[in-house]
């Protein structure tokens, strides 16, 4: 092996203490992804900041998109479904009921669809620069998270004003509900991000799946207590959105808390997260080859 002398040996600093990166064909469960996220946390924040800034600059509505989206859907739902799905005489007016369901739902669906498309949408980056690919679906979820915070602010204003709700101990359960929400969103986001890269036609299927998911989660829009029958009950238990949205509403409004539903949401969330992480890690190594 030939060795060429550098221009001046004195100029070259000793490299014994430098970090060593080993590059080889990878295997493993993908837990390394989690440490990667911490190491690249600044870049993650930059990516979220980029998406937020772009949204402000590109839309007339800008900041208000985060307010407009749930409020507009709430308006349409109240108008269209109010009489059928609402319960007259309930403590919570229908519009507030729907709004407290829509804010977490908007976060879930935006985070999941955004994450699902994130790798494909950023293929330029993926093929040219190294960074842990997991940052892409997470930054999409982060963007949805920013909107979510704005939505929560709207709720914080609307609930006391119109619904006569007062802040109380129930608010302490909010972080719990939000935590499960984040778990479900990121797990599903990771899974779909990888699936969308491997199977290109999935991009078209994704919006359809989101629509279906909305209708399969009556917790969002159905105030009238419904007997769903045994099959319906099973679907509710398996639907990670169900328990967490009901819990969010209960924590926000101080109504009865369904611990069983939240627990099943959390359990499904953990499974989805584990599967999502494993699958993402498995497909990640071929992203740049396939994209």
């Amino acid at each position, binding site marked *: 092996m030939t060795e060429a002398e550098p221009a001046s040996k004195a100029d070259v*600093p*000793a490299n014994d203490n430098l970090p060593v990166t080993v590059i*080889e*064909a990878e295997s493993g469960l993908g837990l390394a992804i989690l440490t990667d996220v911490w190491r690249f946390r600044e*870049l993650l924040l930059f990516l979220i900041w980029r998406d937020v800034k772009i949204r402000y600059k590109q839309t007339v509505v800008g900041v208000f998109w985060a307010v407009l989206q749930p409020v507009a859907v709430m308006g349409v739902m109240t108008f269209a479904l109010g009489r059928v799905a609402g319960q007259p005489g309930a403590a919570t007016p229908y519009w507030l009921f729907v709004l407290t369901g829509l804010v977490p739902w908007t976060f879930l669906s935006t985070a999941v669809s955004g994450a699902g498309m994130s790798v494909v949408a950023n293929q330029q980056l993926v093929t040219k620069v190294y960074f842990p690919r997991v940052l892409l679906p997470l930054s999409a979820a982060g963007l949805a998270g920013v909107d979510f915070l704005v939505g929560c602010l709207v709720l914080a204003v609307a609930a006391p004003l119109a619904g006569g709700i007062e802040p109380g101990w129930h608010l302490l359960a909010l972080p719990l509900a939000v935590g499960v929400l984040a778990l479900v969103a990121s797990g599903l986001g990771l899974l779909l991000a990888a699936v969308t890269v491997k199977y290109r036609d999935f991009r078209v299927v994704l919006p359809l799946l989101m629509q279906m998911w909305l209708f399969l989660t009556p917790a969002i829009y159905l105030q009238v207590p419904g007997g769903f029958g045994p099959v319906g009950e099973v679907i509710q238990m398996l639907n990670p959105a169900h328990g967490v949205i009901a819990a969010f509403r209960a924590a926000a409004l101080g109504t009865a808390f369904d611990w069983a539903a939240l627990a099943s949401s959390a359990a499904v969330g953990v499974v989805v997260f584990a599967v999502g992480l494993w699958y993402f890690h498995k497909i990640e190594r071929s992203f740049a080859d396939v994209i």
Partner: protein
Amino acid sequence: MHPAIKVENLSKRYELGGGPPGGRTLAETLSATLGGVGRLFRRGPAATPTATGSREFWALRDVSFSVNPGEMIGVIGRNGAGKSTLLKVLSRIVQPTAGRAEVRGRMGSLLEVGTGFHPELSGRENVYLNGSILGMTRREITKKFDAIVAFAGVEQFLDTPVKRYSSGMYVRLAFAVAAHLEPEILIVDEVLAVGDQAFQQKCTQQMRSVGRGGRTVLFVSHNMPAVQNLCTRCVWLKGGRVMADGPAAEVIEAYNRDVADVGGAEVDLTSHRGRTPDSVVAMQRVRVMNDADGRSPAVPMRGTARIEVAFAHTEAISDVTLGVVVKDAYHLPIFGPNTKVTVCPTQPTPLKAGTITCRLPDLPLMPGTYPIDLYFGSRTHDFDVVYNAVELTVLPADVFGTGKLPPPNAGNICWPATWEIVGDVVENPPV
């Protein structure tokens, strides 16, 4: 001192022909699975996987070499030799199939400038974004911000969205960010082929100062003069394998000799990537060779190059016209004769098919590889234009009789000069 980069038996395999680019679709996978299940219920020979013509392609095969800290290494080879794949594996964009590499220190990769630039964001915002993507911390970017902006020369336009920048400004800003990365190891892929002459010089200087600062640089390029200028050592890749690894001048010479050995630089033009979209396929094949023996594809300096273009067209052309533009490694044209401006014998009859031969006598080009654009048509207009149709390889020759040639960074043209030295007549000699 440990090696900065140690590559051991690195290999990368791609699978070709296994479906449309971008992976299979769900539909295909589902039907393949269902088909498989269906076969379980049928009597007959054991199910064989459908031969979709899946072929293997080894982009890298058992590549091994070692780079010491502070070295500047050039990676050379023909197109498709595996240079970019090697960089991608070392940059961790793509995973190796086998083997390993050890990299000591922070590694910065420049595979393209402006990675992550978003047109809606301002110059300032893009500097932060791009810098972060390349691996700088926010504090680092702030510290170097003024230097980056000064290097690019865009102080006045920092707060306008990048989509309003001219392409030159865009490229300068993008390179400025990349140039201020201070990793221990820098990997560069022909990024220097951007911008105007003055800017390119700035970039080359930057690369050289990075190298002098004790950093290790891995540089991939087709531009032999640049490689020879900047690099102490060269690794030559061919077909994914290491052919040579040693002092730059020797390896480049071996590479040039190998290129000359390839029998017949004939290129099929019928489906060439460089054809413009509104061209008609009229040129079929092109061959570049040394006119002296009519065979070797490389031409010595001051020799005569012969370019033969075989054409076939649906209508007969009464005045076949060919233009040949010889370009440098940066794809800037050097000279471009055509049949309309030089003396050209008239053709006897209108032709539907034939061969047109161009001879370039007394080539004044320095050793290297020069892409050629071809413009084919009739006297009135060129209806078949192919960019980078073929390459002309020029070999070193002792044109001055001194055994020496001008340095490679003194330009593409080798032109003779005569010299005269006269002493001054001293009127009043000093006391």
